[in-house]
């Protein structure tokens, strides 16, 4: 019973968070709701990034670009060839664009396409250990907007692609924003469970062993090339799904939706949430969505800072976390948990121990 306690607590926390998320829309307006939809999709992207960076030790500064790819795939499939022709674009004939789809079905497809591209990027990346990989993915993040602008017959160039907000299906009596909120969080829940299963199982063990010592892992029969490429593919799948959700939520994609800054902030919030801890990822997503808002006009104190303030706070927070809390937020929670555990243990031993004899 005692040994199962942590698992029970984790499960309880998961259920509690799920209930909070399900009830949240009752207490907020559409704008707030949309912010929490963004939290969901950042959460998905960060799960993927955490698998790659936290569990497999490969730094990616290009996840914003992968989200961008997912968003474009989703937008293109939603519009289909007829939709693009309405925009007077002329995509090459060999692109399998279809005739337009319901947005929600483009989510897994966007994930698959992005995952495939991630695999392709991941293969040369194998030769670029450590920092070179960070550089290569950083370069990808910087070049994606220019590539999107160059192939404007498919992507709509700098003007981007506008979509229609989807309608709530099944005749549900909720607004589109509510529907998109649930859509994003249900997807996030599924993706979290998948990530959790991968990380706990054989795959996760292989990833972690490579992170902690590639040579040792290889000599124990783990194929580093295979598992590292796989981590890249899985991670980009997550980013692609997140990107598709983003495209559906804002009903618009253009090259500047995914600036280099996004890629950098994704990595930063992943570290702030806690590398190698899936639970911290949720905190990272909250930070990524709300820190920019609150550091520009902080609550409680009456002040307005420059719109550059979020960057300064983000950067400083990141450095402080690395200095003081290498495990990020999840590490802090774990430390607190251990501290409480020890306090309880101390209290119970004191109670069972015989009371010291008192003379006076």
């Amino acid at each position, binding site marked *: 019973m005692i040994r199962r306690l942590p698992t029970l607590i984790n499960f309880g926390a998961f259920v509690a968070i799920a209930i909070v998320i399900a009830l949240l829309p009752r207490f907020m307006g559409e704008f707030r709701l949309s912010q929490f939809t963004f939290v969901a999709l950042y959460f998905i992207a960060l799960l993927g990034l955490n698998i790659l960076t936290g569990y497999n030790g490969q730094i990616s500064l290009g996840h914003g670009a992968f989200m961008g790819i997912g968003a474009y795939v989703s937008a293109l499939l939603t519009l289909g060839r007829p939709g693009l022709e309405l925009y007077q674009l002329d995509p090459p004939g060999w692109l399998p664009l279809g005739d337009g789809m319901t947005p929600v079905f483009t989510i897994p497809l966007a994930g698959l396409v992005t995952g495939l591209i991630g695999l392709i990027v991941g293969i040369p990346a194998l030769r*670029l250990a450590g920092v070179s990989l960070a550089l290569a993915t950083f370069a990808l993040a*910087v070049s994606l907007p*220019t590539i999107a602008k160059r192939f404007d017959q498919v992507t709509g160039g700098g003007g981007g692609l506008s979509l229609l907000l989807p309608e709530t299906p099944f005749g549900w009596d909720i607004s589109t924003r509510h529907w998109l909120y649930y859509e994003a969080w249900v997807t996030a829940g599924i993706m979290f469970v998948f990530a959790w299963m991968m990380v706990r199982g054989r795959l996760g063990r292989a990833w972690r062993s490579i992170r902690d010592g590639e040579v040792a892992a290889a000599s124990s029969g783990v194929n580093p090339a295979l598992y590292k490429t796989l981590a890249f593919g899985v991670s980009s799948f997550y980013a692609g799904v997140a990107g598709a959700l983003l495209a559906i939520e804002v009903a618009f994609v253009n090259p500047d939706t995914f600036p280099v800054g996004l890629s950098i902030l994704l990595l930063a919030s992943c570290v702030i949430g806690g590398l190698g801890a899936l639970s911290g990822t949720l905190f990272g997503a909250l930070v990524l969505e709300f820190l920019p808002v609150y550091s520009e006009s902080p609550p409680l104190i009456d002040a307005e800072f420059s719109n550059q303030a979020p960057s300064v706070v983000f950067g400083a927070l*990141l450095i402080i976390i*690395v200095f003081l809390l290498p495990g990020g937020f999840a590490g802090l929670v774990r430390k607190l948990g251990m501290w409480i555990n020890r306090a309880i243990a101390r209290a119970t031993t004191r109670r069972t121990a015989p009371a010291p004899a008192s003379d006076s």
Partner: protein
Amino acid sequence: MADFLQQVVSGLASGAIFASLALALVLIYRSTDVVNFAQGEMATFATYIAWSLMDHGMSYWPAFMLTLVLAFLGGAAIERTLIRPVEHRPEIAIVIVTIGLLIALNGLTGWIWGAQVKAFDSPFPNETWEVGGVVISQQDVGVLVVCLVTVAALWAFFRFTTLGLVMRAVANNPTSSRLVGVRVGLMLAIGWGLASVLGAVAGMMAAPTLFLDPTMMLIVLIYAFAAAVLGGIDSPVGAVVGGLVLGVLINLLGAYVDFVGSELRLPTALFVLLVVLMIRPQGLFGHVAVRRV
């Protein structure tokens, strides 16, 4: 042919800027074993300081020199306060600190000086020379000369001074250097200071053509990374050669290959880089890393 040579010269000018920043990256990589993602933002910050000095009425070259001194102090201070505490932590921790520095410095630059684009004076006349039909802009030549003089001065410093020798020793083997009485920490701080100076030179040379804004050096940083990796991330010669080659290459590709045009220069350069790395992961002048496990 004249047109071709013209493209080569202007390619060399931008290449010299890449080379300076790439050399800064290599300097830090050799001493601290880490790629400094904040190098570009440090350079931008220094360039803004130069702009402020000139805005307060200082003339170009005194402002230039004073900026270099400030950049040196700033770089050394960053090493002492931010990098030293994580020196012995895993590589990923140091990389993340430099990324944090990138984000924070970028925000700080925008906070202090605003996000709007500023014009930055050039010390060189906006005229051209004509040599045998080839039109050469004096701006390009000036940039090339300043960058190469800086690089040469640095080379002479490392090659002919005792301090330079000591710093090379520290980069080579910090433990043994400490055992013979070298103050390794001080040397690392000086290394960061020098790298910051190189970045400042690159920034001030790039600013007249790129115009000054908080993200000015981002693309330059990517090219500098590419140049450093192309030349071999641990090779100073490689960084300089890589920078110049890259500058000429992208200029020629942009001018003569229609498909590339001006938009696809960066992706194409990166693609070339990837291909080189597939064949020679250590870069053109780099050393094959041998690890003991």
